[in-house]
C-alpha cells in the first residue's frame, strides 16, 4: 500500500466509567504509568519490525482517557513512531482528552510532546445532561477546557451526544448552536446509542431510560447536519463534521479502509503483510496485556487474514459512511474485486431509483437519504 499508515495507541484508563461507554476502559486507584509506557513502546517497536519502514500519516491517542497518561509517555511514543516510520508531511497527532481540571493543566505539556490536534470529550453543554451521562466535568469546565485547548493546539475537535432522554429538538438546536460558536474546526456529533453490557443498557431494559423514537431521532439527525452545514462544517461522515481540510486524517484512514496499526490493550488493526490483509487484535484486559508484552514483546491475540468477501464488506460498510463514498479503483486495489461484483444489482438499481445511492464508474456514494438508513441498506445491497 502506498497510503500512509495510521497508528492508533490505546490508553485503557479512565477516572470513571461512563454509563453509555462500551469502550475498553478501566478505572484504577493508581495508574501504573511507567509499566504501560514501557509496554506500549515495546509493542510499537514489535509492530514496526514486522511492518518495515512505511510512511506514517497520523497518530491517534485514544482510550480510555489518554490525557491521563504522562505527557512524557506521549512524547516518547511520538518520537519512537517518527524514528520507526517515515513521518508524512503534516503528520496529524491527535489526543483524546476530557475537560476536567486534572487534564486541563497538562495540555501545554502534551502540545510540547508533539500533539497537534486535541479531541475533547465534552458530550454536552448542560450540567444536568453531563450528570446523567456520568461525566466528571461541568458545562462551565467544558467551555473553559475548549477555550484552553483552542489556544493550545492548532486543531481542535470535540464530541457531543444527542438524542438523549427527554431532549427536545429545540433544546438540542440551542445547545448545538452554542457548541458551534465555540469555534472548533471539527465536531463529532453522536446519537446516544445503547451498547450491550453498559449501565445504560440495564436501565433501558427496565424501561427507565427511554430514547427518542425512529422519527424523532431522524429529525434530530437532520437538524444536526443542517445546523453544522450552516456553520461551515461539512458532514463528511455520518457523525463527523469538519471545516474544509480539517477532516480527521486518522479516522479517514478507517473509513477509506487504509492500513492502520493498533497497539495497546484491546486495539484492533488492519495491516498489509506481504499479499495479505491481516486483522490484528490485542488482549483486552490491561494488566494481562502488559504481562504478554513483557513476556513476548507484544500482546497480540489470534490474528486472521481477512478474506476477499470480508474485505469487500468491510470496505463498503466503512466507506459508505463517508460523504465521498467508495472509490471504485481504490476498492479494486484493496479487495482484488470489482465494486459491482460486490453488490446485488437488483438492489443497487432500486436504491438508485429511490435516491439512496449514486453510482458512477468512479464511485459508489450513499446519499444523505441512503446514509441515514445505512444499516438497513448495507445488508440488502451487499451480495
Amino acid at each position: 500500500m502506498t497510503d500512509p499508515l495510521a497508528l492508533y495507541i490505546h490508553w485503557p484508563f479512565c477516572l470513571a466509567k461512563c454509563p453509555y461507554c462500551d469502550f475498553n476502559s478501566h478505572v484504577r486507584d493508581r495508574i501504573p504509568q511507567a509499566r504501560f509506557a514501557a509496554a506500549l513502546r515495546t509493542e510499537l517497536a514489535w509492530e514496526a519490525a514486522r511492518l518495515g519502514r512505511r510512511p506514517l500519516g497520523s497518530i491517534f491517542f485514544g482510550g480510555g482517557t489518554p490525557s491521563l497518561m504522562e505527557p512524557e509517555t506521549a512524547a516518547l511514543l511520538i518520537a519512537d513512531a517518527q524514528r520507526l516510520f517515515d513521518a508524512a508531511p503534516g503528520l496529524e497527532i491527535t489526543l483524546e482528552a476530557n475537560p476536567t481540571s486534572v487534564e486541563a493543566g497538562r495540555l501545554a505539556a502534551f502540545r510540547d510532546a508533539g500533539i497537534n490536534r486535541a479531541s475533547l470529550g465534552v458530550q454536552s453543554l448542560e450540567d444536568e445532561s453531563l450528570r446523567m451521562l456520568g461525566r466528571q466535568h461541568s458545562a462551565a469546565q467544558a467551555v473553559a477546557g475548549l477555550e484552553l485547548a483552542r489556544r493550545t493546539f492548532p486543531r481542535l475537535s470535540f464530541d457531543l451526544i444527542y438524542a438523549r432522554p427527554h431532549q427536545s429538538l429545540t433544546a438540542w438546536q440551542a445547545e448545538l448552536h452554542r457548541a458551534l460558536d465555540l469555534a472548533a474546526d471539527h465536531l463529532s456529533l453522536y446519537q446516544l446509542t445503547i451498547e450491550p453490557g453498559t449501565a445504560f443498557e440495564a436501565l433501558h431494559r427496565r424501561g427507565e431510560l427511554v430514547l427518542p423514537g425512529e422519527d424523532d431521532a431522524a429529525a434530530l439527525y437532520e437538524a444536526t447536519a443542517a445546523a453544522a452545514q450552516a456553520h461551515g462544517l461539512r458532514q463528511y461522515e455520518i457523525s463527523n463534521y469538519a471545516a474544509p481540510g480539517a477532516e480527521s486524517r486518522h479516522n479517514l484512514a478507517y473509513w477509506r479502509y487504509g492500513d492502520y496499526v493498533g497497539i495497546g490493550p484491546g486495539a484492533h488493526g488492519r495491516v498489509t503483510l506481504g499479499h495479505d490483509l491481516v486483522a490484528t487484535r490485542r488482549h483486552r484486559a490491561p494488566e494481562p496485556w502488559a504481562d504478554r508484552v513483557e513476556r513476548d514483546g507484544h500482546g497480540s491475540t489470534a490474528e486472521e487474514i481477512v478474506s476477499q468477501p470480508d474485505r469487500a464488506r468491510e470496505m463498503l460498510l466503512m466507506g459508505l459512511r463517508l460523504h465521498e463514498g467508495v472509490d471504485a479503483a481504490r476498492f479494486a486495489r484493496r479487495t482484488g474485486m470489482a465494486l459491482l461484483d460486490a453488490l446485488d444489482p437488483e438492489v443497487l438499481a432500486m436504491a438508485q431509483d429511490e435516491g439512496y445511492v449514486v453510482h458512477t464508474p468512479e464511485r459508489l456514494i450513499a446519499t444523505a437519504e441512503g446514509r441515514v438508513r445505512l444499516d438497513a441498506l448495507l445488508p440488502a445491497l451487499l451480495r
Partner: protein
Amino acid sequence: MTDTPLSRIRNFSIIAHIDHGKSTLADRLIQVCGGLTAREMTSQVLDNMELEKERGITIKAQTVRLAYKAHDGLTYQLNLMDTPGHVDFAYEVSRSLAACEGSLLVVDASQGVEAQTLANVYQAMDANHEIVPVLNKIDLPAAEPDKVKQQIEDVIGLDASDAVMISAKTGINIEGVLEALVTRLPPPTGDANKPLTALLVDSWYDQYLGVVILVRVRDGRLKRGMKIRMMSNGAAHLVEQCGVFTPKMIPTDDLGPGEMGYITAAIKTVADCNVGDTITDDRNPAEVALPGFKPSIPVVWCGLFPVDADDFEKLRESLGKLRLNDASFHYEAETSAALGFGYRCGFLGLLHLEIIQERLSREFDLDLIATAPSVVYHIFKNDGSMEPLHNPADMPDPTYIDHMEEPWIKATIMVPDEYLGSVLTLCNERRGQQSDLTYVGNRAMAVYRLPLNEVVFDFYDRLKSISRGYASFDYAMEDYKESDLVRISILVNQDPVDALSFIAHRSAADSRGRAICAKLKELIPRQLFKIAIQAAIGGRVIARETIGAMSKDVTAKCYGGDISRKRKLLEKQKEGKKRMRQFGKVEIPQSAFLAALKMDA
C-alpha cells in the same frame, strides 16, 4: 358380567354446556359406584387427553360401566357414554346418543340453559331419549333453581318438575341421579339370538393395542375370536380382545345385547373404523345395517405450513400420526409461493381446526403458519360441471364460472337482553337472515341463517367480545345457496401473496380488503424501501396502503475497532433475511403473517 338381563341395563349420556359440571358429575358417579378407589381418582377421569382437560371439552367418546345397587335391592349395569360436547362433532354426538336410551340434562342452576346445550338436547330428543333434567351447583348462593326449571320447560319443552337437584362438586344427591337412571330410563332392547349388529361409536389408536373400537351391541353377541365385518366397506377383522371400561379396561369373553364395550382386532388405522358403521358377524351377517351411517366430510379447510421449512417432513409425519386417531380430519399436500411446502387440511369445524393445530404445536412441537380458514364452495362451470373448492388459490378464472354456491348454517345464539342489539347487528353485517327470536326471562334466543364463510371469519370472537362473553352460540349445517362471491388477492409491491388471498361475498369485499391492508400496514415493519399493499379483485384494486420507508437506521459510531464486529453483524443480518418470507425485496416477518391470518378485522 355378560349375563345381565336387559331389564337391568341402563345406557345413558350426559348433556351439558361447558363448565356446567358434566365431568365432575361423571367422576362422582364412578366414585359412588366404586369404579375407582379414591386413590385412583384423578380429577375428571374421562377427559384423558391433556387438551380435553384444559378446555373442559370432550373430543373422543368414552364409556364407563358402573355397577349400582339400587333401592329395589337389585344391582344394575349402568353404562355412561361420555359424548363430545361440541357442534363440530355433531355427527359423532348423534352416534353416541344412538347408543343410549336416555340422557341426563345437566344445567348449572346459577347459569341456566345455553345454546350448545340446546343443540345436544334436541339431538337427544331426535334419538328418542328419555331425558332426566339435573340441576347442578344448587349449593351456590347464585343458584336460582326455580327460574332455571322454568327456563327448561319454556325453552326446551321438558317437564322439569322432577328435576334432580344436586351438587356434583360437594356430592349432594348423587344417589338421586342414580335412582332416576334406574327408575326413569327404559332398558335397552335386543335379541341375543339374532345375527350380530353392533354400532361403531368411536375408535382411537392405542400404541400397544392398535385401534380400539367403542361399540354398542344391538342384537347378537360380540365374542373374542370372532371374525367381524364392517358393513360399510366389507372389511373383515378377527376380534382379539373384547371388554368393558370401569373405567379401567377389563377384558370379558363377550358383549351381549344392550351392552357397551370395546374390541380390538389388530386394526392399524382408525380410517378403517368409521363412526356410525355397523359391525356384524362375518360368518352369519345381518341383512340390514343399523340406520344413520354417514361418512365424515370436512367443512372448513386451511393451509398449514411449517415456519421452518426444514420441519416439513416432521409436519408430514405428525399429520399422519394424528390421522391414525382422527379419521375425520383430512390433509393433502399444498405448495404456496409465499409459505413454501405445507398441507391443505380439512376439519369438521373451527374448534376441530383449532384442536388439531394446537395438538400439532403441543404434542409434536411444531411451529406452524395457518392460512385463513375457508369453507367448501361449489363452483358450477360454464360446461355444467360442478367442482368443490376449498382453497381460494385454486379458484378458476371467473370467465369459466357460471355461478358459485356457498354453504349456509342455522345458528342459535342465546344472549342476555342488553347485548341483543349488538348481536343482531353482527348477524345482519354477516348477511344473516333471522328465522326466530324469542325471549326467556331476560335472555333472548335468536335463530339465524348465516353463510358459513361469514362465521369462519372471526364471527365467534366478535360475538364473544360484543356480548362480554355472555353469548352462547351453536350451529348446524343447512344447505348450499347461490352467491355472488369473489376472490380477493393481496399484493405486496404488485406481487400477489397467495397465502393471503380469500373468498368473500362481493358486498363484503371492499371492507374486508381495506381491513386486511390496514392490518398488514400495522404489522409489517417499515423497511428500507416503501411497500405498497393492495387488495384486488382480478385486476381491479379495491384497497391500498403504503408503508413508508424507515426514517433512520444507522450506527452512530464506527471506527477501526468496530469493523470486525460490524461485519459479523452484517453477516448475521444477511443470514436472518434468508429465513424471512421474501416478496420481491420486501421481507414479511413471520409474526406479521401469523397476526394477519389471525386477524380480528
